[in-house]
């Protein structure tokens, strides 16, 4: 064991002679609790507040159609890249011309990814990395289209982590709670949307029976 490590831990132990103490997390706010329909309404309200556009479709193939509509309307340039998330498989993305799968490249303008969950508390998305998802997909292209399964809209951040870690699954290398597009107020406190991450975040919620 290295000397600095022993030194530091030794000093900490000298400052803390007592045993370990129990620690409990704080309360989950009421806005993160409720019926599925109420949570869904709150999730949409949160997306609106965070500057995220969204649409709801009622079938998985409808997701591809909605993304096609969105791209035609928004008209972002550059390449189109999607993750290999199994969640996207039934979405009919093959209808999108020029779609690539895998990691994003410098010239890509749009990425399409799935999500672990939608979180009502603040209109937040939980995304992850994995064998099927290169993490930069969530950050590099100008436009990020994220697909949310309506059945996985939960109340609070804790609920999303519970879904992610169900059955004792270890955390993926990266897990991010995304709330709105990238932003900064570094210049004279003037809010700028789209600094290093996406300028546009579009959410497609699939509410399939």
């Amino acid at each position: 064991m290295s000397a600095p490590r022993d030194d530091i831990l030794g000093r900490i132990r000298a400052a803390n002679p007592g045993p370990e103490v129990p620690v409990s997390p704080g309360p989950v706010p009421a806005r993160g609790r409720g019926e599925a329909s109420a949570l869904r309404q709150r999730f949409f309200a949160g997306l609106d507040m965070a500057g995220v556009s969204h649409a709801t479709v009622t079938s998985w193939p409808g997701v591809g159609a909605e993304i096609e509509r969105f791209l035609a309307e928004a008209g972002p340039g550059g390449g189109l890249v999607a993750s290999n998330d199994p969640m996207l498989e039934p979405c009919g993305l093959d209808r999108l011309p020029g779609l690539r799968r895998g990691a994003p490249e410098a010239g890509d303008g749009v990425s399409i990814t799935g999500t672990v969950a939608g979180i009502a508390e603040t209109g937040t998305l939980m995304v992850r990395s994995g064998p099927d998802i290169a993490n930069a997909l969530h950050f590099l292209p100008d436009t990020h289209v994220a697909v949310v399964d309506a059945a996985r809209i939960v109340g609070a951040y804790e609920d999303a982590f519970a879904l992610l870690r169900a059955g004792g699954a270890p955390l993926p290398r990266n897990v991010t709670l995304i709330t709105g597009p990238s932003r900064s107020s570094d210049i004279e406190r003037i809010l700028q949307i789209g600094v290093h991450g996406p300028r546009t975040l579009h959410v497609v919620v699939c509410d399939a029976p």
Partner: protein
Amino acid sequence: MHADSARFPDNVTAARRDPMLLGALQRLQRDARAGRAEVIARLPEFEALRDAAREIRNGALANLAANLERFEENVIANGGAVHWCRDAAEAGAAVTRICREAGARTVAKGKSMVSEEIALNAALLGAGFDVVETDLGEYVLQLRDETPSHIVIPAIHLTKDQFAETFRDAHDALPEDRSLEEARAITDEARGALRDVFLRADVGITGANFLIAETGSVVIVTNEGNGDLAQSLPRTHIVVTGIEKALGTVEEALTLVRVLARSATGQEISAYTTFATGARRADDAAGPEAFHVVLVDNGRSDLLGGPKREILRCIRCGACQTVCPVYGAVGGHAYGAVYAGPVGSVLTPALSGLETAKHLPEASSFCGACEAVCPVRIPLPRLLRLWRQDAFQAHLGPTALRWGLFAWSALTAWPGAYRAAGAIGGRVLRLLAMGRPRLARLPFAGKWTGGRDLPVPEGGTFVGQWHRRRGK
């Protein structure tokens, strides 16, 4: 500007003569107050969450050794490495060694106050690495060779025009006649310039808001997305952080997330809250092959064992800076330290010694605005008072003040003499004032009146008035 804390009085004078700085500070304080109030009004549980946040941080400090050991174990289990560093020199050397072993040329840096504390950029540049700050504010500061003046809004002291001017100088390959009138254009130019850096960087360095023992995760809370690119694209990810940030569980971190952005920027939550756990997994599509966490002590374990331990609860939200009337009057650079404002005035004497930093604990009216907004309820005025006591005991204050305090405390033991002295003092001041309501200069206290006027007492002493009114 690399001011130092010993020059605080001179720095203050300079700051008060800078109208652009004072305008920026005024705007900051006005907007932030409104923003915080609005976002808190929407969360009825906010005060309960602050109580919980305080207890979570207290528990984290009580369990710090075990939390750090568990954190290390889990980082290693997930393919990463942990480096323990007693001070700035050890930390700088550790990061330099990792970069060298990674065969790095370009290093993309996300925002990290601890890296400022250990002067990491200087160490890396000195070792020949091309290190680039990628947070918009930090990037412009690096180009200007300046330090951050606020924990979360590092370039709050700069105007839009200064950003534009700096970019014109730095990005000389771009057309000279381009417009940088709008903040949008400036932001886009930075985005373009730094995109290249992310794509070619060999190493990404980020700070950490929290470390999580049970999983070995490092949490960063950001808005721009640069910290996420810096930890996703390069082959190596290095985290530079203080030892005090280790928590037990993910849920503890989530409670802190709920109070952090609301206090820092008046947002419900920042755009990105990212948990990074170890290196990329064997079958992952992408991600860094190497993951290193550099744990920096730099005086923290000493604070832990002393009466100012509570400052280690700090989650670096910057709210105490934003709300402080002294910070608002002089800005961050005047403090001549990495951490400005109330939190800095408690930390800096511990980091760089009370002798150099003795002015900082004095830079407070003890109004309590900082403690009132601190999400983890650190009693900042009380901790500042402890430093004042230390300074007095170490004979660091002016001799005149010392003698004055001795005389005053001697007088208070003799109420009759105290009253007589008070009455005489009042009369002398009235004589000196010759009818004016305020005194601009006082004999034997020229330094004190150099920065302020003394109001002239009217109508006798308090005790005198008390007796007169009761007699009626």
